[in-house]
Each structure stands twice: as C-alpha cells, then as structure tokens.
C-alpha cells in the first residue's frame, strides 16, 4: 500500500465514523440530536473534499511505503496487542513488568540483565507506591479469576 493510499484510508475511516454519527443521531430526540448534527454535517462535507483530495494524491504519487517501515509498524501493533493481553490477563502488577521483560529482550534485543532490571524496577514502583503507599486497587487480571 502506498503512503497516499494509507492516508486516504484514514480519511475514509473518519468519514465513515462521522456518517455513522449522523445516522445514529436520527434516532435521538430533536433536542439531543441538534448539536451532533450541527457539527457532523459540516464535518462530513469537509471530509468529502479531503477524501477527494486524498484520492487524487493516490493517483499523483505512487510511492510504495518503505518495507522496513511497514515491518516496524506491524511489529509495534503486535506488541501493542501483547501489552493489552498481558495486562488484561495477568493484571497490572504482573502483566506490565512481564511486557517490559519480553519487549526489552525480544524487540529491543537487550540483555537479560537489563530487561530483568527494568521489569523489576517497574514492579517495585507499582507495588511500592501504588499498592503499599496509596493502596490503589490495580487491575487484577482475568487469568487469576479463572484459575
């Protein structure tokens, strides 16, 4: 996918979302839908122009996105998924340090000692400040409740 095409896709997502707002507003009472429609309709009009401009850019510039950039982006999205999954399943206290450990070791290619030290330091911050001192309830994680 070219960069221009990706840009057009983003504009399309914005356009679709705004159109969805317009459609959903019609189910609301007149008072409740007034402000959303007042904002969404002009925004939709502007988005239509932007979309046209983006489409013409696709035609004008056909530079394919640099492959290594794509690879790095996809890797980052994957790691975002790992972060979400680890904190959802293992909770903040375990999941976040676990994420740090894995990321530093396998993505950043750091030594085990560095990865462990950072993860341990983060855990200490979480436990020491948030749990011990503030007694803030941290998200416990789904896995422990299933087990």
């Amino acid at each position, binding site marked *: 996918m070219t960069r221009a095409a990706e840009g057009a896709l983003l504009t399309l997502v914005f356009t679709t979302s705004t159109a969805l707002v317009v459609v959903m507003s019609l189910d609301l*009472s*007149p*008072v*409740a839908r007034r402000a959303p429609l007042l904002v969404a309709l002009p925004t939709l009009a502007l988005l239509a122009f932007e979309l046209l401009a983006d489409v013409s850019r696709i035609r004008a510039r056909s530079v394919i996105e640099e492959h290594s950039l794509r690879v790095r982006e996809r890797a980052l999205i994957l790691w975002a998924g790992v972060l979400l999954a680890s904190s959802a399943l293992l909770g903040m206290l375990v999941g976040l340090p676990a994420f740090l450990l894995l990321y530093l070791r396998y993505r950043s290619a750091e030594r085990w000692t560095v990865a462990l030290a950072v993860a341990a330091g983060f855990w200490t911050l979480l436990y020491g400040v948030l*749990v*011990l*001192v*503030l*007694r803030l*309830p941290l998200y416990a994680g789904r896995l422990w409740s299933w087990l």
Partner: protein
Amino acid sequence: MVSRRQALSALSAWAGAAALGCGEAWRGSTTGPTCGGLAGRRIRWIVPNAPGGGYDAESRLIEPFLEQRLGAEIAIDNVPGAGGILGARAIAAAVPDGLTLGVVGVPGLLVAALSRAAGAPNPASDLTILGRISRSYHVWATGRNSGLETLDDALAAAEVRPLVFAINEVGSASFVSITAAASVLDVHVEIVAGFGGTRAASLAAVRGDVDLVGFNFDTIVDLIDAGELRPLLQVSLSRIAPHQSLDGVAILGGEDGWALRRTRARGRDIDQTRRHTQALVDVMGAGRVAVGPARLDTGLSACLSRTLHETLTDARVLAASSRTLDAASARVAQDDVQRAAAEAPLLLPDLEAAMRRVRQ
C-alpha cells in the same frame, strides 16, 4: 500551634503509612467478631463516585473504625460513572464472599432500575442491604434575592409563569424529587438541566438565574446558614431536622401538608396525592446504604450488618462526622428499601411525562 507530642504522633503516622502500608496505624488490636474469617483479609469497598464526593467522604470516615472492628483491611475503590450505576453493578457482580462491599444511593438507583437504564441493579433484589449509613431529605430552596419568601409566594408566582429549577442532570434524584413534588402540588415547573453539580446549580439560584433548586438539605445547609439560600419546602412527611432555618418552612406531606392542602383546594384525588407523596418521601428517604452482592451468606451478612451498625453508632465516628449520619440497622434499611421499591412505580408516569417534555 501544634504541640510537639501531636507532631511526633502524626509524624509516626506518616512513617507508618509510608513503610508499612496504609491502615496499620489504625488497626491496633483486633476486636469484635471475625465475620466468617474476614480477619486479615482485604475487603474491596466500592464507592460509586470520584474521590471527594459525599459517598467517598462517608466511606473514608468509617473506614478506619470498620477495619478495627473487622480486623480486615478495607481498600476503598472509587468506581464513578453512569450516575452511580457502574459502582452498583460492580458490587452486584462480585462474588458473594464478603470481600466486595460498598455503598449505593437508593433513590437514584431505584429510579434508574425502574426506568430500565442499562444494567442498573435494583437495590431491593440485586443487592444485599447491610445497613443504612445516612439519609437526607430534599428541600426546595430559593436565592435570598428572589423575592420569594414562602412557598405561598412561589405557588402564587407559578400561577403566572412556571417555576424554574436548576438541576445537574435529568434522571437524577433531584429531577425525581422536583418532578414528583411538583406533580402532587399541581404546579408548573421548568427544569434547566446541565449544571455541573449541586453547588453549581445552587449558585444559579443564588445568582437569580433560576427560581429554585431541590437538593438534599445536608448538601446545601451551609448555603442556607450563610443566608445565600432560603428553604421554602421540605419534601418530607414531617420536619426534616431540628435546624432553625426550617422553622415555619412548609412541609409537603402529612395530613396538614401542602400536597393535601392544594389537592383539597383544587378538588383533585386526595388518595392519589396521599399515595404519591408517600411514595416520593419513601423513595427519597431510603438513603445511602451499605451493600454487598446478592446471595451473601446469611450468617456473614448478619455479622457484617451488626459490625457496620456498631461502627456507625460508635461515639468516635459520630464525633468525627460533622453531620448527622442517621444510620439504621440492616432490618430497618431493608424494610425501607423494599417499601421504596414497591412504591417507586407510582412515580414513573410523571417522570416519563417530564422526560418527554424536555426532549421536545
């Protein structure tokens, strides 16, 4: 000046908090019943609003005393949002093992449950009532420069134009109270919603942008004391509090109350007015209750209720609280909630009509 001894004791509390974790300084020795093995455990106490709100302040007030009696650590967990529904749902969905408790406001939750607001638990059936912490009846109050000295003046003004109220949001306890009270008084009101809280709405009345506000007496008593607001009506069956600002202030309910007085004068259905007024007062008076999930073990529930009631009637708690809590045992609170839940549907038609009006 703070004495050296006080300072040292406070400093040691600081150090204790930092090094050992909060609550150690308060726990002291374990006294009272262990309530089915809760001693040494951590109880999650859910508060359905952000830190600083009324529920939060009351919970933090009783927290150290409850910890002492239960021998357990209480971790206050603020779960704000959706007018208290998120917090109530979190309690209702928890495992009924005594390790998740909390506080809910019955009036708002009842109305939300009855109007089928998404997932709002019904306090009468979806939660175990452990006891009432506090309650406060609503009053109608006007700004000091409004020109309205008594309820009579307000009702007379309402013959010419609607009485304008300020509230925070439609569907709130305030909305319910004003709408229902206006219905039994047969007075035309306009509700302006969207103010950012009780105080902001009260300020609108002080400023004269609106005629009246209808809020918990306890929440606005300081503005009344300061002379900024003047109470015109007590939404109750009898005098709300022995507070001098309520001397001679009209009372909505009761045989001599203004609801029946207006109904008789206008030839409307007296029984209906009586029932609706009772329903309104019962719903508003159900108060803030401590709850656990439904299907809590009977023995555990009884123990927790007993401990909570002892805490709430503890002289130290009463001394530390700057306002009357009006605690009640689990049995009394359960009866109040059941009665309120049974009568609340009477208020629905008026509420739905009011909602339809604001949506035009």
